[in-house]
C-alpha cells in the first residue's frame, strides 16, 4: 500500500497537494481576476459537482471498480426533477424521489457488476448511455428554470461576504464522512484489500460483493445529489446537464493518486486532484482558453495522472532499493 514507506516514498498525493498550492499561489499572484471573491466562489461552486462525485468515486476506484455513469445519473436526476416540477409537485417531495432514483441507478450498476460478474467499466459505459437517454425521454429539450428562490439561492449563494459558497459547508461534512469511512473504518480497510487482491479479501472473510454493491449504490445517490445541486446551482434543469462530468471526476481522482488498478490512494490526494483540476480550469477560463481546449487539457491530465503515480512509485522503489539493499530472493 501507498502508506508503507512514508519516510522514503515520494508520495503522489503530497505531490498533488503541493502542486495545488503552487498553482493557487501562482494564480493569486499573476492571474488577473483570480483573487476576487466572485471568481473564487465560481471556482469552488463549479468544482463542487466534481468534488461531490469524487468522494464515492475515490472509494470505488480504491476497491478496483469504476462508475462512468455518474454524470448521466446526475443528468437524469436533474431531468426528473424538472419534469416533476413542471407537473406541479412540491420540491420537498421531488428531491427525495430524485435521490431514490439515484439509489436505483447505482443499485442497477452494482447488481450488474456483483451478481452477473460483469466488468464495471463496460456496465457503466452502457448505463452512461442508457441513463442519459432516459433523461432525454423524460424532459425532452425543455429547460426548467423556475425552481423556488430559496433553493436557487442556497445552491449559488455565498456565506455572508466571503467567497465561500453556502453549499461548501455541507460538502465539508460529506468529505469528513468519506475520509473517515475510507481511512478509519473496517469498511475502508476492506476496500483497500479488495482493490489490491479481491481473492485474498474473500479468503479473509470480507464480503466483497456486499461492499461493492453498497459502494455503487452510494455513488448513485451522490450522483443524483450532484444532479440536483447542478440544476439549482445553474438554475437550469436540462437532460444534458453535467454531460462529460465523469471525465473530470475520473481525471481528478486519478490525478490525486488513486491507482486505477485499485488498492492504493488517499481521499486527501483525490480532493487535492479535484481542486487542482478546478483551479486549472478556472485559470484557463480567465485566460479565455476555449472550452474545447480545456477538455484537451483535462484529457492530457488524465493520461499524466495515470503516469505520474507510477513514475513516483518507481522512483521511490529505486531509492528504497539503493538504500535498503533489496533483499535477494532465494
Amino acid at each position, binding site marked *: *500500500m501507498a502508506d*508503507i*514507506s512514508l519516510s522514503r516514498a515520494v508520495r503522489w498525493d503530497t505531490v498533488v497537494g503541493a502542486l495545488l498550492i503552487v498553482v493557487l499561489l501562482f494564480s493569486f499572484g499573476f492571474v488577473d481576476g483570480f483573487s476576487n471573491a466572485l471568481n473564487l466562489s465560481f471556482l469552488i461552486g463549479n468544482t463542487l459537482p466534481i468534488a461531490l462525485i469524487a468522494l464515492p468515486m475515490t472509494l470505488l476506484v480504491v476497491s478496483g471498480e469504476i462508475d462512468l455513469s455518474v454524470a448521466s445519473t446526475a443528468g437524469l436526476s436533474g431531468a426528473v426533477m424538472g419534469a416533476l416540477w413542471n407537473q406541479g409537485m412540491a420540491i420537498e417531495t421531488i428531491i427525495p424521489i430524485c435521490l431514490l432514483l439515484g439509489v436505483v441507478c447505482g443499485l442497477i450498476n452494482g447488481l450488474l457488476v456483483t451478481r452477473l460478474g460483469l466488468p464495471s467499466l463496460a456496465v457503466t459505459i452502457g448505463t452512461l448511455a442508457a441513463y442519459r437517454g432516459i433523461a432525454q425521454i423524460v424532459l425532452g429539450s425543455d429547460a426548467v428554470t423556475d425552481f423556488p428562490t430559496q433553493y436557487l439561492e442556497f445552491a449559488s449563494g455565498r456565506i455572508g461576504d466571503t467567497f465561500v459558497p453556502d453549499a461548501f459547508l455541507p460538502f465539508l461534512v460529506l468529505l469528513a464522512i468519506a475520509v*473517515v469511512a475510507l481511512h*478509519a*473504518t*473496517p469498511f*475502508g*480497510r*476492506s476496500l*483497500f*484489500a479488495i482493490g*489490491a*487482491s479481491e*481473492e*485474498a*479479501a*474473500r*479468503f*479473509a*472473510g*470480507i*464480503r466483497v460483493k456486499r461492499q461493492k454493491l453498497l459502494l455503487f449504490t452510494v455513488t448513485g445517490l451522490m450522483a443524483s445529489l450532484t444532479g440536483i445541486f447542478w440544476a439549482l446551482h445553474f438554475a437550469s434543469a436540462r437532460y444534458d446537464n453535467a454531460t462529460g462530468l465523469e471525465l473530470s471526476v475520473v481525471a481528478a481522482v486519478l490525478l490525486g493518486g488513486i491507482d486505477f488498478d485499485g*488498492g*492504493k490512494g488517499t481521499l486527501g490526494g483525490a480532493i487535492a486532484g479535484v481542486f487542482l483540476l478546478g483551479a486549472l480550469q478556472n485559470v484557463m477560463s480567465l485566460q479565455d482558453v476555449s472550452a474545447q481546449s480545456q477538455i484537451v487539457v483535462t484529457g492530457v491530465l488524465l493520461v499524466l495522472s495515470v503516469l505520474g503515480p507510477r513514475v513516483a512509485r518507481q522512483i521511490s522503489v529505486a531509492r528504497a*532499493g*539503493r*538504500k*535498503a*539493499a*533489496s*533483499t*535477494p*530472493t*532465494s
Partner: protein
Amino acid sequence: MTHPSTTGPAPVLALKDVSKSFGAVRALRDVSLELFPGEVHALAGENGAGKSTLIKALAGVHRPDAGQVLLDGAPVTFHGPGDARDAGIAVIYQEPTLFPDLSIAENIYMGRQPRRALGRIDHKATHNATAALMERLGVELDPDRPARGLSIADQQIVEIAKALSFDARVLIMDEPTAALTGSEVARLFGVVRTLREQGAAVLFISHRLEEIFEICRRVTTLRDGALVGSEPLEGMTEDDLVRRMVGRDLDELYPKQEVTPGEVALSVRRLTREGVFTDVSFDVRHGEIVGLAGLVGAGRTEVARAVFGIDRWDAGEVTVDGKALVNGAPSTAMSAGLALVPEDRRAQGLVMDMSIERNIGLTGLRTTVKAGLMDRGAERSRSLDWAVKLQVKYARIADTVNTLSGGNQQKVVLAKWLATGPRVLIVDEPTRGIDVGTKAEVHRLLSQLAADGVAVLMISSDLPEILGMADRVLVMHEGRLTAEIPRSDATEETVMAAATGRAAA
C-alpha cells in the same frame, strides 16, 4: 572446497569464488560450483541461502561482483540471459510461461519458426522439429496440441524441449517439482534421466529431499550465501543433508504430540458440489490432526473451500461445534471459529502489496474496532503479537509482505488466522515451497495447536508430512472420500492405494 572431479571430462560450467552483494546484503560469498556433463547435481539450502542468486549468476541475470563464471574451463562474462542461452545454458522455472493459445510447436519455436518462401511460417518443419525433440526426450506430446490444458509437468517438458532446441548443454531446474503430483514427478524425472544419458549437465533445486536423493549424484549446499560443500550424495542420509543446510541438528521434522481427541469440532455430512466432489462426510475432533490426502485434482481443496464458504455446496451440511454453517459465507464460518489457510498464499492467503501488520489485521476487522472505527493501536499490537509468536523474520511490521521469503509469508498467513483464535483450523498445503527449517516450525505449531484443543484438518500432497503429523488420514479420489486410515495403519502404500483408487472404498 570444491570437490575435485575424479572421473570423466572437465566441467562444462563452473563458478569460481563468486561473490555477489545487494547493498549490504552479501547474497553469495566465494562460492564455487562445478557442473559436469552427464550428471544431475543438486543445489540445496534454505530459503535465503543464495540459491536463486547463484542460479541468476549462472543464467546471466546477475553479474558476479567477484569471481568467475567458467564455460568449458574458460572465463566468460554474460551480459544478459540471452548470452547465457547462446552459451547453451537454460533455466526451467517452477511455473512455466507458455502461451496457452499457441500449440506446443509454436511455443517452442516462438519468434524463430522455420520459414518458407515470402517469410511464411513453415508449419510442417516446425511440427517435425518439435516431434524430433519430443522423441529425444522420450515423451509423447502432440506438437500441434495447444499449450492450454497441459499439466504443469508437461508444460515443463515443453520448456525443456525449448531449451534443447537452443542446443542447451546445461539445464538449471529451479524447483520444478513444487507443483507436481507424484506421477508427474516420475514423468519429469524420466525426461531428466534421458537428458543425463545424453550428456547434459543438470542443476536441480528442490525442497523435497527424497527427490534430491532419487535423481542426483552430487549435492552442493549453501548456507547464508556461503558454500558448505560439494559432495557425492552416496552414503549421505537426509538428516546429514538437513544438518548441512540448517547448520545444526534439526529438531524432529514431525514433532507430533500424543493427544486424546475431544468432542467433534468440525462435522461434514454428505457434502456435495456437483461435478467437483460427492457425498463427502467426515468429523474432526478437538485435539486431532486429520490429514486429507489424495492426488491433485481429487477435490481436497474444493472441499475445504466449500466448508469455509468460498464456494457454495449443492447438498449436505457442515457444523462447527454443533452449529450449522451458512452455505457460501466465509464471514459466518469465521465467527463460528473456522479458519482456512489456503493453498495459494500469494493469491489467496495474502494481499501482497499490503503490510505485514495489515495482512494479519484483515482477519480482525470486526474485533480491533472501537466505536465503529479501526482501533489502530489494538490492530498493531495484535499483529505484532502474532508475528513475534510465529517468529516471522521481518525488518518492520509495516513492510509489505512481498518483501518476505516464502516461509515467512506462510507464517504471516498462519499468524493472520491464529489471531482469530480458531477452534477449527484447515490448512491447505501448509508447507509447500518452504524450507525445511520453517517446515519443522510449522509442524511444531500445528502439533501445539492440536494439543491446545484446536481441531486441525491438514490437506497435503507431501505424504511423509501426512504420515508424520496426522492422527487419522482421509483419502480422496476423484471427488469422493475413499478411505479413512488410522495413524497406526497409515503407510505410503495404503494411502497411495486409496488415492489412486486401487483400494475399495
